[in-house]
């Protein structure tokens, strides 16, 4: 997969980092402000997809890896389930067993913060893996020669 023009590459160089930081902010403040795990995860995946689209498959294949994305997604969603099972320690399934601070503070709401983080990581990694599976893994017309590790399914 080829990259795009010079203008797109330059703008992406400037912007992709900010998008990723904003996504992380959204995930971390998910239990206090609107947004949360899912929307933050989608933005995180979008920043990575932007880099892949702008710079092409070869560059992205050297820097990012699909295997890491898949492992991260699986482990994050297992962490979510472990947090849920941890609720058994204090009573019910999925009960909030961590410290709940004041409403509106960052350090509050117990397990909600952790599940927000887990969902954000999982959605980001998962959507990136989906994008790679759909757009980069091609048989037939688009030749896969010389594009590095990205094209291994």
């Amino acid at each position, binding site marked *: 997969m080829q990259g795009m023009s010079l203008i797109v590459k330059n703008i992406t160089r400037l912007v992709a980092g900010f998008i990723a930081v904003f996504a992380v902010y959204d995930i971390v403040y998910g239990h206090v402000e609107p947004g949360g795990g899912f929307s933050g995860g989608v933005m995180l995946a979008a920043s990575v997809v932007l880099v892949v689209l702008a710079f092409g498959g070869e560059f992205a294949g050297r820097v990012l890896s699909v295997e890491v994305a*898949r*492992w991260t997604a*699986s*482990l994050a*969603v*297992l962490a979510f*389930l472990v947090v*849920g*099972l941890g*609720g*058994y320690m204090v*009573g*019910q*399934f*999925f*009960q*909030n067993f961590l410290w709940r601070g004041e409403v509106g503070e960052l350090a509050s709401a117990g397990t909600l913060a952790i599940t927000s983080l887990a969902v954000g990581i999982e959605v980001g990694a998962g959507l990136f893996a989906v994008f790679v599976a759909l757009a980069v893994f091609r048989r037939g017309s688009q030749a896969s020669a010389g594009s590095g590790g990205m094209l291994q399914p």
Partner: protein
Amino acid sequence: MDQVVPLLVAIPLAGGFLMPVIGRLTKSHRAIAILPILMACGLVVIAISLLARPDQTIVYWVGGWKFPVGISMVVDGLTRLVLLVIASVSLLTLLFSLEYMTRYTSPGLYYGLFLLMVAGMNGVVISGDIFNIFVFLEIASIASYALVAYGTESDELEASFKYLVLSAIASVFILVGIAFVYNVTGHLNWAKIAQVIQAGGGLTMPLYVAAAFFFMGFGLKAAMVPFHAWLPDAHPSAPAPVSAMLSGVLIKACGVYVLCRLAFSVLGSHQTFGTVLLVLGALSMVLGALMAIGQGDLKRLLAYSSISQVGYVVVAVGAGLVGLGLAKGSEPLTAASQFAVFGGLFHLVNHAVFKSLLFLCSGSIEHATGTRRMDQLGGLAQRMPVTGWCLRVGALAISGVPPFGGFWSKLVIIVALAQLAALAHWAFYIPAALAVVTAAVTLVYYAKVWRSVSGEPSGVTDGAREVPVAMCLASVVLAVLCLATALVILPSVRNRLIDPAVRVFAPAEAASESATVQAAPADGRISTPAAAQVAAKRGMTP
């Protein structure tokens, strides 16, 4: 004891998330399959242990959040029955896929998707919250779309696309129905919605619209005519264990079960919904059987037969509903309606057993000979005795030949319909007659199946050998179960298994009483007069 209820969803979910990881670690099909089979055994153990106290309704509030903020999981008689069916059929199907899936790649993904589908179905069945049912329904449906397309051949992809589009439309309709119900009642909890509707004096126009959307959506998930168009393409193209799960369990857990819950426990107003179910069920029964006669592909015939048999279940349940609506306290009519519902649920259990047996046998046949066309299968029974006999047992059971379970359930349905016709209204004779005719037609096309595996050996079956032990074991256990379900007629088995489910459907006031009084403990005031009656009976102050 109650803490075990969410494990029904948590265990297969954990399996669904773990399996892709394990699939990337090892490549051996059989090693990967050990964990799912263990999990399925665990689910069967939990389902059987829930049968220990058949009449108690367990209400579990997830996360400790009580009414009205929390999401509840409700286990009552009907839930226990369907849970047992799901757990048993999934265990045997997993045993079958141990050997069968060696012909496909990426077994980790297959088992992951399979366990996600089981988690979704369990979630639909135990959920006490209307939107939660939608979420788990979608989990199960998405997993099944991917499973139908698993082989990625051209036919499978087309079938999966068609199934996906139709099923997604159904999900959108269900969501719109949920929006209407929330707007009218202001709650999402089943039991509370039933209370609010009864307190508000029955159904109003928006609720009828919501009911119409629900019937379209869940009718498509249950493959009732006229919403059946996806089933004859999706079930044959899927791998055999997936077809067994789809046809045996998914259309019942996601379709028929939720329709029963809606029509009986939540919405009330029995006659309208009962008549709709009766008509749609009778149509499915007859059209499915007629279209099955002309099929040459074994799995396509089995798919149309599924439509027909699910029609039986829906006819029985619908007739019971209409009977309860007309009963108004008359004892013989209530008893006859309960008998009809008993027949419907009994047939649901039976059909899960013998349809999955038939699909697994067709998978064994495909594994051994590579074809599904019945005209090429001659002489199979001599080369593959175990599969041949299992196929014959399944055909006998589904056609309603005594002493197999299918005979008893069809008999109960026809007798119940005739009783209702004598007691309530002569129009019940029509579905009764159609049920008899359909049973005869079912016998005709299963005789065709029987004849096709006996007889002269053809070129295709010459190289066929008996299938590996695991597949045989699954088929044989299911064949034994076909015979064993006839024992449900005995009162001791029936009281444990099906009567608690029937009692959920008994007069609507009783159903919403036990569920609402239990599910709204924080709400000390009891609003409906019927619930006040029950409270007085139990010695609580209203």
